[in-house]
């Protein structure tokens, strides 16, 4: 099976449980490279477990996760992670440049300091998200969208082909959402595969090339028009589907 050229993330029959309750059940999925992939599903659907599995943090009950053909637990650092905004202490004494430089840490041996080359790479990553003018700022002084972009720069500086983003659009206004999406698009054009946990079904079809719909099981994976179907969504979201009726209407038209 020589599929590692086409697929960057391969999940095969993955089951993960917490105290006899399955967080993920028999999930099999292969994600192609150069895609902008959205992960959708209700709260408690196992989205964060899915992310942890890709980052190689959990030992599955059954199944394997492969990153670029290599077991996820061994492929540390091949997936760059962008945390949720709420997970970061914005008062931490650290500048924008230092955050971007963190992306290089995995390449710097413990006995040396970051080289000029590392600093250069960090600055280039900041330029890519148009944050180079803020390099000396403390991260708490930035707006929400700028903060998100700095963490994207850090992920880009890691040089990984796969970027994992945990709700990058949570709590930002519409204009900022556009700006972030713009950076994601450019990262994709630069040959990155982006996996994005997303909450807002109404924008999912517009933003992503492919969607993953999970709730413990994998319900669908494919282009948005094949995933955002009423029968599938009603199964996954149960009673809460009425909120999304406009999403479906938009899809049909």
């Amino acid at each position, binding site marked *: 099976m020589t599929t590692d050229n086409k697929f960057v993330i391969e999940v095969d029959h993955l089951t993960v449980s917490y105290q006899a309750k399955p967080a993920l059940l028999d999930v099999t999925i292969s994600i192609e490279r150069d895609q902008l992939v959205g992960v959708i599903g209700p709260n408690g659907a196992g989205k964060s477990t899915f992310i942890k599995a890709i980052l190689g943090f959990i030992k599955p009950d059954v199944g394997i996760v492969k990153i670029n053909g290599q077991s996820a637990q061994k492929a540390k650092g091949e*997936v760059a992670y962008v*945390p949720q905004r709420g997970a970061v202490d914005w008062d931490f004494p650290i*500048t924008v440049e230092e955050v971007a430089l963190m992306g290089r840490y995995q390449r710097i041996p413990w006995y040396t300091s970051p080289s000029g080359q590392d600093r250069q790479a960090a600055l280039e990553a900041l330029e890519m998200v148009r944050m180079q003018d803020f390099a000396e700022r403390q991260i708490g002084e930035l707006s929400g969208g700028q903060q998100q972009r700095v963490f994207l720069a850090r992920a880009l500086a890691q040089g990984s082909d796969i970027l994992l983003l945990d709700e990058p659009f949570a709590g930002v206004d519409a204009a900022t959402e556009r700006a972030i999406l713009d950076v994601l698009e450019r990262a994709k054009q630069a040959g990155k595969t982006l996996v994005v946990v997303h909450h807002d079904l109404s924008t999912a079809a517009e933003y992503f090339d492919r969607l993953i719909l999970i709730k413990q099981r994998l319900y669908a994976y494919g282009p948005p028009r094949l995933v955002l179907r009423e029968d599938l969504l009603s199964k996954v979201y149960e009673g809460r589907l009425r909120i999304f009726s406009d999403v479906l209407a938009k899809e049909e038209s």
Partner: protein
Amino acid sequence: MYELFIAPLTETYFQKALIGGSIVAMVAGVVGCLVVLRRMAFLGDALSHAMIAGVAGGYLVMKLLFSLEAHAPGMLLGSLIAAVTTVALISFVARISRVKEDTAIGIMYTGIFALGVVVVSIFRHYIHIDLMHFIMGDILGVADTDLWVSAFVAALVLTVLILFFRHFQIATFDPIMAASIGLPVLLLDYVLTICVSLVVVSAVSMVGVILVVGLLITPAATAYLLSDRLDRMMWLAALFGVTSVVGGLYLCVWLDSAGGGAIMLFCTLQFLVVLVVAPKYGLLARWLRMRNLIPQQQVEDILTTILRYEKPTPMNILYQYVEQDKGLKKAVLSMIGDGLLVEAPEGFSLTEDGTKEAGKVLKAHRLWEAYLESIGTPQEELHPTAHHLEHISDSSTVDYLDEKLGKPVRDPHGQSIR
């Protein structure tokens, strides 16, 4: 002058206190930065209290097995074991029961502290530990072994922190990212805890159980108010630790007071001073920022007053019409700086930008009047109420009012909205 500053320096006890105190305070400051940023201050407190059981245990074992009296390395090892055991028990209880971590810390450290107190009092004929000394510390009676122990601990802890600075930085700032690039986050946690324990253990003999936490977190917190980079914060914390010891020791000699108390008092005063005067995060800076902030409402009032006056407006007219006339001059000056106004001998007039801004507020005002009339507000209240509401002039609100009212051309007073 000589009496005050130089004379104490010639005393051996003062020299030892100065050297030992500075070493301990410096390394405590550096480690303290990570303690503060990880919100582990309470854990530092726990470690220092739990130590007494370890000291007693170490003393007892060395005495009973090797008949060595007050063997310093034995007690040091004992306290380290006690500290690590306490941390292990805390995380065990917090993990397996529904008791949360802060409560678990409280239970475990008082429990182990109590065990230490009981052991010391039962074996009071074997162990010669002065509990008061342990609680209050005795920096003026620093023994040579204490000096060597603290120098060794400082060298070890600083080496670890400098070598693995980046690892500790990232594991503190973003543990998930740290784990995702393959750093042993849990191991780093343990190493840090051991470093904190070592520092606490070496500091207790000087400043005592109660004050050691202050030495750990106060210089670090002081530095936190002054720096936006972790490496700088650590330098400053070390510096503040040393100045606390120097200042505190002089204070103690001059006032003839308790050494540990004087040091922590000086340290706290130092923090309070920085809290007030810090250039960016200080209270004074905050107050100045607030004071220099010109209320949007005042700016908009000035704009509309000049627009309505229709010719260059002198200051007294502004004082008459602008609701909030405090700081009016400053507001006008800052608006000139922002390019909203120009000043001429006969008064102030609007620039192009100013006219645009004023027009926006005026449109909002008239739309609000029209809206208020439509919901049945009495005529005489239309203007004053709209005057408050006009400051809600963002485009989505204005558009909503415009739509809802069917895009009116004139307001209730017959003035043009378009």
